[in-house]
């Protein structure tokens, strides 16, 4: 059974698969994997804001945009990615703080609206201020970073294995992803994670227990947004082309879809969700024009069957295996009074 194998073994196994995944694969497949890793990072950020802290945000794609454009502008001007990336992440952190401020006054759908407006505004600024952003032509040919013995811009042998530029950039994505995931894991397990959940569950009570809900709300936004920024700063060298429409509202909705399909509030949810949202359409491509139809039906069925997403399916299967009636522990024990 699942429980027989310890968690860390599963994680090690998963990592091993991710390490060998692009070997011997074509460029397209490698790039799809990169795309999966990038969106997973963005979705994990949103999962913190939405899944744990319960603050709805429809602006994650715009943070990817900010991260991507900052990275693009810096790296096109000769600054190394390793410097540009933290700059992008920090910038997104602070912009996230700002976007979080309305969340102190409004909740739920109003907050959705404010973040939606922010996303629209970012996209329009990117398109209209062409002196900086290249307007609707976007920015292209961003350099891929060179890490001395590991130059992602060129193909070469690493440890005796011939790696293409795309494969190397995949490993950059993978390393970033692993580091980010580890940080997130620590955060969620720390008392901060509990505070985020408290904010989601009952903010008034949380406040009366000494939790500074304002600070927690802002942090939830800022950290989540920084995740978006990190994803964006990967996108710039991976895709080597960015333009405003790639960050439009529909893409924020897509990231939301990843979070919920995977299972909001589950640590591994975004990884599964991003895999489904990005990889499933690829598998369905052979159905030609019908793939989006099939895909949307699949999502509806999943949501109807398991509202807590793919992670919830696991729970449901486990509970199917259990006996039909469960007598709760305390109900079986003898009288306690």
């Amino acid at each position: 059974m699942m429980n027989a194998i310890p968690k860390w073994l599963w994680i090690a196994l998963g990592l091993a698969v991710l390490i060998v995944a692009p070997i011997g694969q074509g460029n397209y497949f490698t790039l799809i994997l990169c795309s999966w890793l990038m969106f997973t990072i963005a979705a994990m950020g949103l999962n913190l804001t939405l899944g744990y802290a319960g603050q709805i945000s429809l602006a994650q794609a715009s943070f990817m945009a900010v991260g991507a454009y900052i990275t693009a502008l810096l790296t096109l001007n000769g600054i190394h990615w390793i410097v540009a990336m933290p700059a992008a992440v920090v910038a997104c952190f602070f912009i996230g703080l700002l976007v979080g401020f309305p969340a102190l006054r409004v909740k739920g759908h109003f907050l959705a609206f404010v973040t939606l407006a922010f996303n629209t505004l970012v996209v329009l600024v990117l398109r209209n201020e062409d002196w900086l952003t290249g307007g609707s032509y976007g920015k292209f040919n961003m350099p891929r970073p060179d890490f001395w013995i590991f130059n992602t811009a060129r193909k070469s042998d690493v440890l005796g294995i011939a790696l293409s530029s795309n494969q190397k950039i995949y490993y950059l994505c993978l390393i970033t992803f692993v580091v980010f995931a580890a940080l997130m894991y620590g955060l969620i397990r720390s008392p901060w994670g509990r505070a985020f959940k408290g904010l989601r569950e009952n903010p008034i009570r949380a406040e009366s227990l000494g939790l500074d809900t304002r600070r927690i709300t802002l942090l939830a936004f800022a950290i989540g947004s920084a995740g978006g920024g990190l994803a964006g700063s990967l996108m710039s060298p991976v895709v080597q082309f960015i333009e405003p429409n790639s960050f439009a509202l529909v893409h924020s909705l897509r990231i939301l879809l990843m979070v919920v399909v995977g299972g909001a509030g589950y640590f591994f949810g975004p990884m599964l969700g991003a895999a489904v949202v990005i990889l499933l359409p690829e598998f369905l491509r052979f159905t030609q024009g019908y793939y989006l139809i099939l895909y949307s039906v699949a999502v509806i069925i999943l949501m109807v069957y398991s509202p807590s997403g793919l992670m919830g399916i696991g729970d449901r299967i486990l509970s199917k295996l259990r006996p039909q009636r469960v007598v709760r522990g305390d109900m079986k024990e003898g009288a306690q009074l």
Partner: protein
Amino acid sequence: ADTMKIGMVVELSGGGAPAGTNFRDGALLAAKEINASGGVMGQQLEISEYDTGTDPQTSRALVQKAIDEGAYNIWGTVYSSSTIVNMMVAQQAGVPQITGSEAPNITAQGNPYIFRTSYGAQKGIPALTAYFKDTLGAKKVAVAWVNNEFGKGGHDVFVGEMKKAGIDVVADIPSEAGAADFAADVARIKDSGADAVFVYLHEEESARFLREASKQAVQAKLVGEVTLTGQKVIDLAGDAANGAVAHVGLTADAPLETFKTFKAAFEKEYNRAPDHNALKGYIGAYITKYGTEKAGAVDQEKFANTMHGLCLKAAEYPGILMDTCWDDSGEMSRPSFMIEVKDGKQVVGETVPAN
């Protein structure tokens, strides 16, 4: 090998679906004809379709995929914003790409593997300058354009031309792709006192614009490039389209035998009328055929070299529909038409010679 793999990367969903679908259908029609007559250098065309969803990044990944899967040529994309991105991939891999896009900057990149099926706005719009200046005698013009890659390219060329011609642009009104409500745009144009309006929008937006202009009784002449007088626009706008004028590089209603034959074949195959994107797709497929045969080998680099500076006569190469030449940047030239809508019909006026 006795098959030739083609990667058709086009907009089959999303906002560009109408254009992409037409391009595809035109290309498939041509491919069917080509295969029936023995293929290209004895190889049958084997076409894989890739739907970009009108998303540039997806299109880039899909061009990569098509190349991974061994495509000899890439056909598409139609939307300039996608082409500008994915053409880099094809260029790196040395795969010729035959695009339906018209944005000026596509052939300005110095990419030796890109070829157009219809010339860029920077060649089409100047053909209108004389019309504004001499025929209409306009002093003040307004321009309504769609604020994306396609519209911005055209808009910039147009504004430059007007400046050269000494005509004032008194209202400069961008709108979003897919915009539905043109009340404010038209009200501004009316208020600006322009004698003529240059309408550079996609088909459906053109139709909505024409309707609103007719509702608000705009007196100024409405002039377009390619789209404004398309059959689709006329169908959608109804009476409101009457009087609109456009310079058109390709139209299924051109009074030429080759076009009539094409139109009949397309209608037979698909039960609907083709538009200029269908023509582009059709021509694009034949470019692959004729270019390869001219090169004398199924070789991507030779193909590209051959295409640069190539001129084809429609009499010998009927699939090309009109006498056409390509220059070193992949830009093309061929004759074009002025069309006016009268009583819901496209009336082809003078033919503008190739430039």
